[in-house]
């Protein structure tokens, strides 16, 4: 490319887009202003730069707190999160998404990432169990798990591909119940939202989601003998452009300070 010539009409939009489009070597700029551009690999000992953490939707509140803690402990670092269904995140990572750390809500999804050589090894850091979430008014008068199988009760579950959905399938199998859900949601937070909004009579979500909803839903315990749990593994990803920082964040999650935040959010020790 010989030189960059300014467009004839200097529109405001063109002016804004110039640094990206006019002189760029590639016609496809990465959307969202590329937070990774300022990333720098730091010398050992001095943690700097940014990392992008892909985490299960159920970790939203706990990890947001952990991220703030980490940034306070290490000034000059930025931790950005992408919260979604673990299965969706695993697909994004194996398709080449620029993530540095993956925290999944099931070993199955983490195994996919390890099998695709996107991570070396994963460490389980917490476990989580399901609870029945109902609106505070409890319009369908749900008192126990078997009530979800009653006809006319609007039950919303996570779709079976995502960890909370897979765990719900186990719970119903353990209890010998057949439940016909009215919707299978893409992740646990949208499942919870259907109850928060009063559209669904009940949903199976994690204990931690009921706690995080802060009274917007009421939790009903599932008997321990039929309840199922899921393990949360975390791994620094091989493709990370800032491996030191990624490893440091994983260490922070595994530290006693990290464990305290996770316990407060309702997660169980692994």
């Amino acid at each position: 490319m010989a030189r960059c010539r300014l467009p004839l009409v200097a529109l405001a939009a063109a002016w804004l887009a110039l640094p990206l489009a006019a002189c760029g070597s590639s016609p496809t700029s990465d959307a969202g202003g590329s937070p990774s551009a300022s990333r720098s690999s730091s010398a050992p000992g001095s943690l700097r730069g940014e990392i992008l953490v892909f985490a299960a939707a159920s970790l939203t509140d706990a990890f947001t707190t952990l991220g703030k803690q980490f940034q306070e402990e290490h000034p000059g670092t930025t931790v950005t999160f992408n919260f979604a269904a673990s299965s969706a995140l695993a697909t994004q990572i194996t398709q080449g998404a620029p993530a540095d750390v993956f925290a999944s809500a099931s070993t199955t999804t983490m195994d996919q990432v390890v099998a695709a050589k996107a991570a070396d090894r994963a460490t389980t850091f917490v476990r989580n169990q399901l609870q029945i979430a109902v609106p505070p008014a409890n319009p369908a008068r749900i008192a126990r798990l078997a009530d979800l199988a009653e006809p006319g009760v609007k039950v919303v579950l996570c779709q079976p591909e995502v960890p909370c959905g897979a765990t719900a399938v186990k719970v119903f199998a353990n209890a010998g119940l057949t439940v016909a859900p009215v919707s299978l949601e893409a992740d646990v937070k949208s499942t919870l939202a259907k109850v928060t909004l009063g559209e669904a009579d009940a949903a199976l979500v994690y204990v931690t989601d009921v706690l995080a909803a802060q009274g917007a839903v009421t939790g009903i315990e599932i008997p321990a003998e039929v309840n199922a749990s899921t393990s949360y593994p975390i791994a620094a990803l091989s493709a990370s452009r800032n491996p030191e920082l990624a490893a440091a964040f994983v260490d922070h999650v595994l530290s006693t300070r990290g464990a305290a935040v996770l316990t407060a959010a309702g997660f169980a020790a692994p």
Partner: protein
Amino acid sequence: MTSEAGTTPDGIPRRRVASPRTPWPIAVPAGLAVAFLLVPLAGMLIRAPWGQLSRILAETQAVEALRLSLICATCATVISLILGVPLAWVLARSRARGTRYLRALVTLPLVLPPVVGGVALLLAYGRVGIVGSHLDRWFGLTLPFTTVAVVIAETFVAMPFLIVSVEGALRSGDRGLEEAAATLGSRAFATFRRVTLPQVLPSIAAGSVLCWARALGEFGATITFAGNLPGVTQTMPGAVYRAFETDPPAAVALSLVLLTVSVTVLVLLRDRWLRPGADV
């Protein structure tokens, strides 16, 4: 590309008028635009799991989702025609103050992010919504999680496409015929039905196709308002999204089905009605 049709008409001095060479500041971005639009589609065709296509489509409830998509999009288009064409007429003909604002408001879903539309629908027609709570109390009707909710969500986002295209035609159409009909004693509704409507038929057809295509691709409002359950509320875009999370080849296979439907629609129309200003 130069066209052969550049012969000089009516003895005008030899000057290339019909097809000048495209200047490079136009040709280069235009070429990039073509690549930008077509490369993703090419990528899908190249990476498509052709060998396993029939197996995937048989396994993934694709037929069920496609059937639901086609039925719901068609229902949404029919509702849009019944309600949208009269509204387009009101917007084009009304001299009442505030028509401009009304037009802006009813075409808002054109620019509104669909998921916001879904939230709005939930707050209006959901079980505890401002309208939905009465439906529940008086008739025992709840809309979310039903196929009707899918049709409502699709109509909400797609009807403005029909309204805009029909209203445009009504405004640019020949008012003289309507006035002639009126002087000959035709009543207003008869004039609408027998003079105005036939005039704007091509635009109604074009608007319906756009509306139908938009409804077929609806995702954000549907998954928010209607939920996601195979056979009841899971349309093709929902099935693609779900498949992509666990089985990307299946998502590609499902996308190919939707691509085929879209291409078929385009071929059937042969771009006759889709060019702006090509109607009448």
